[in-house]
Structures are given as C-alpha cells and as structure tokens.
C-alpha cells in the first residue's frame, strides 16, 4: 500500500487491474485504492510478471503493506509492488504503522541480524525487519519476534474507525493532520510580491485567438509554468525534507491545489512542469483537474509534488497565506487579478495586478533567496511568450 501523502496511514484496495501471471511494465496501473483523497490508481515502479496477489479487494491495510509480488525477470529476486512512493519523511502520528511497518525491499533488512526462518516469515507476513529489535542473543530477530509484531499489527488501529466517517470528513481529518504537523514542525516565513499581469494577459488573449476551443490556455497555467521555471534559479525551494535535511529534487513537479466538489482539496503533481510546453501543460492541467474531481488520480501524482501552487483569486481573495505541505519546503499562493493603479515609467496607470505569496521553510532557505525566486516569477511573467 503506497504512502501517497505524508499523513496517509492506510488504504482500502478496491480493484485489481492485473492478475497473477500478467506482465506489467513501469507506470502501468495495477490496482485501485480508496484513500482519504479519493480513488487512486496505483502504478507499478518496476516491470515484470505479477507472481502473487497478497491483498484481496475490500481489505483495508496499513501503508507499506505489500499488495502483490512482481518477479522482475527470471532468476531475479521478486520485487515488492507497489513500493511505497514516498518514504515517511515525517513520522506518522499513527504509531501502529510506525512500530510495525510492513515489509520493504529485501535489501532494507540486510543489516539486521535475522534468523533465516524469521526472514522468511517476515516476508510472508509483510513485516519490516528494520523496525524490529530482536529478543534473541545479541539482538537477533527470531521467529517469535516476527509473530509478536504480526500480532501487534493485527491489534493496531487500522480497525474500523474510518468507515464511520464519510469521505469529506476523512479528507478534512487528513488535511488537518498534515497542516497541524506542518505548523508544528516547519518554521514558516512569508514573502509576497505584487506582479503586473498586463503583458501576460495581453499575450494570453492574443494567443487564445489562435487556438481552438479545446486548446485554449487559462492564465493559471502561465502562473504554474512561471513558478516551475523560477525554481530552476532557486532550486533549494524545490526540495523534499527527509529526516533532518532537505534533499533537492531532481525534477520539478508542481502540485496544483484542486478544490473538490463536496469540500476539501488535493494537490496532485504536474510532472516535469518546467519542461512542458504551455499547450501540453494546459492539457495536463485540464486532465489532472478532471481526474482529481472525478477519480482516477495516479499514485505518483499524489506522491511526487516537489512544491505546491494554490490560487484562490477566483474566489475574490486578495492574497493567500498558504501552509507548506510536508515533506515539501515551499508553497506559492496567488490571489485575484484586480485592476489597480500602478506606476509605469512615471505614469500612474490602471493595470491588472496579482499578489504572489511564498511560504517557505526557514530550515532550508532564507528570505534573500526566496525574494530572488519571487522576482524571477515576476520577470518570467513579463515575457509570457517565452514560458
């Protein structure tokens, strides 16, 4: 059961898209999982043959539980699928999954002293050996330790409190837990900049006249692309907090906050945001919003965002003071575009202005660099044709 969000502790497997014996390749959808964030398509991160299905539809299991075994190739050790997408950088508040996390890749347990029988039993039961302290001589993990851990997991709170709440309520709980943790653990600082959108909107209007109805761009996609490109200049904001340090992300995957009908929001990723042409990015954006609201978000889209963009301008909000979504280290908010007086070449003129706000993690960056980032966003929006 992949960890799709920082606070996800369990999920319900609803449907298998593949069966034992099927061949899969990296990126295939292998199963559907019901989570607090809705119905998620779970991708596999390795190719091979589905050797064994371990969790049946309808079962609610903790994150990290092995759902199936995929044999990568003849002779190779079986891979666990799907592997958790996001290492739990911040410890889950649900202690059960922390204490008795299920099996990870076999190599993860290579440093532990484990009896062969215990190792096999752990694999069969989905127990993570790295989380156990053996009661045997010198700390050796023996069969009894595995059985004890399995028994603890059976008693763990993946009981049935969740079905008592409907999905919006569970989603609210999930959001609340993530935001409370963020406020508790991340030293936020905020900067804002007012950006003149005259050039961007003028260019957009002209550009959309040349596009078919289905290919029109929204101004939001310009904001997203500008943020992605600005991150190249201040890459520390495009990092993931792991344990005690920020790890720069190889790719720029902007998570876009999407409000859901019925309440709540999710912020799935637009993969490689900085490398997509505006037309492609707009298609990806439309598709992502559609799937976020109707079901069918992929597991990697929930687990991969490296920064989040949220825009509340359409609700009339002047400026946003967003909360960082852990394990990310920054979030950008945009308010509404409003016609206001603005000085251009010494003349006061009316211009469409937008306030961009950055919340960033002071453990990772400081105001100077963050200021450069906002300046870069502004600069990029003054040359929209180059986005």
């Amino acid at each position: 059961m992949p960890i799709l969000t920082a606070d996800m502790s369990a999920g319900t497997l609803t449907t298998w898209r593949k069966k034992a014996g099927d061949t899969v390749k990296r990126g295939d959808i292998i199963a559907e999982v019901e989570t607090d964030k809705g119905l998620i398509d779970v991708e596999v991160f390795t190719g091979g043959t589905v050797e064994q299905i371990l969790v049946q539809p309808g079962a609610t299991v903790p994150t990290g539980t092995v759902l199936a075994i995929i044999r990568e190739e003849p002779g190779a050790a079986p891979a666990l699928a799907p592997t958790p997408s996001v290492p739990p950088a911040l410890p889950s508040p649900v202690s059960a999954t922390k204490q008795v996390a299920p099996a990870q890749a076999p190599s993860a347990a290579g440093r532990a002293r484990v009896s062969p029988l215990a190792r096999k039993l752990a694999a069969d039961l989905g127990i993570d050996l790295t989380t156990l302290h053996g009661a045997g001589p010198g700390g050796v993990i023996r069969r009894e330790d595995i059985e004890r851990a399995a028994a603890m997991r059976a008693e763990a709170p993946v009981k049935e409190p969740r079905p008592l709440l409907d999905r919006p309520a569970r989603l609210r709980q999930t959001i609340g837990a993530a935001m409370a943790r963020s406020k508790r653990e991340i030293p936020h600082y905020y900067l804002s900049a007012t950006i003149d959108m005259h050039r961007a909107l003028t260019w957009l209007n002209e550009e959309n006249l040349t596009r078919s109805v289905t290919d029109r761009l929204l101004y939001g996609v310009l904001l997203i692309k500008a943020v992605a490109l600005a991150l190249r200049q201040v890459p520390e904001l495009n990092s993931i907090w792991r344990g005690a340090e920020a790890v720069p992300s190889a790719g720029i995957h902007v998570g876009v906050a999407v409000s859901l009908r019925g309440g709540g929001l999710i912020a799935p990723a637009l993969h490689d945001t900085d490398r997509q042409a505006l037309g492609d990015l707009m298609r990806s954006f439309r598709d992502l919003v559609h799937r976020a609201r109707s079901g069918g978000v992929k597991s990697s889209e929930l687990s991969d965002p490296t920064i989040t963009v949220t825009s509340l301008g359409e609700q009339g909000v002047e400026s946003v003071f967003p909360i960082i979504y852990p394990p990310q280290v920054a979030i950008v908010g945009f308010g509404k575009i409003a016609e206001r007086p603005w000085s251009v070449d010494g003349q006061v003129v009316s211009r469409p202005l937008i306030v961009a706000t950055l919340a960033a993690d002071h453990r990772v960056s400081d105001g100077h660099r963050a200021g450069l980032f906002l300046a870069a966003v502004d600069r990029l929006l003054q040359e929209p044709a180059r986005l």
Partner: protein
Amino acid sequence: MTRDEIRAAVLRALGEIAPEADLASLAPDVEFREQLDLDSMDVLNFVVGLHASLGVAIPESDYPKLATLDGCVEYLAARVE
C-alpha cells in the same frame, strides 16, 4: 434546434462539470458561478462541451454572455442551425 433542445444541451454540459448539482432547481436568471461554484476550468470545460454538442465555437470575449441559463439559451439560439 428549438430553445428547449438548446436548454437541454446546456444542462447536459453543466451536468458533466458539476454532476452533483441539482440542475432541475437551477434559477435561469442567476449566474452559474453563484449557483454551482464554478471556476475558470469549469467554464472552459463548459464551453468545450457546448462546442462538442452544438458545434458552436464560443470566443472568450463572449463568455460573459453565458453566465446564466437564460443567457446561454439566448446566445446559442442565435448561432445554432
């Protein structure tokens, strides 16, 4: 195409983007955004839906004319065969 048929097409397009909405109780002269909490992505999808079902390519400058059900029917009636 009659106005009733156009109205039905508009409601179908709205149903696609706001499936949870009770369209039967939609006030015809009150803005969709107010009644259905639509955002710009919804509006774009609405226009794309109308284009697909009625064959009308609506320029962005005309979006304000599509703000209500009555406005949509009026606007589209003048443009569909």
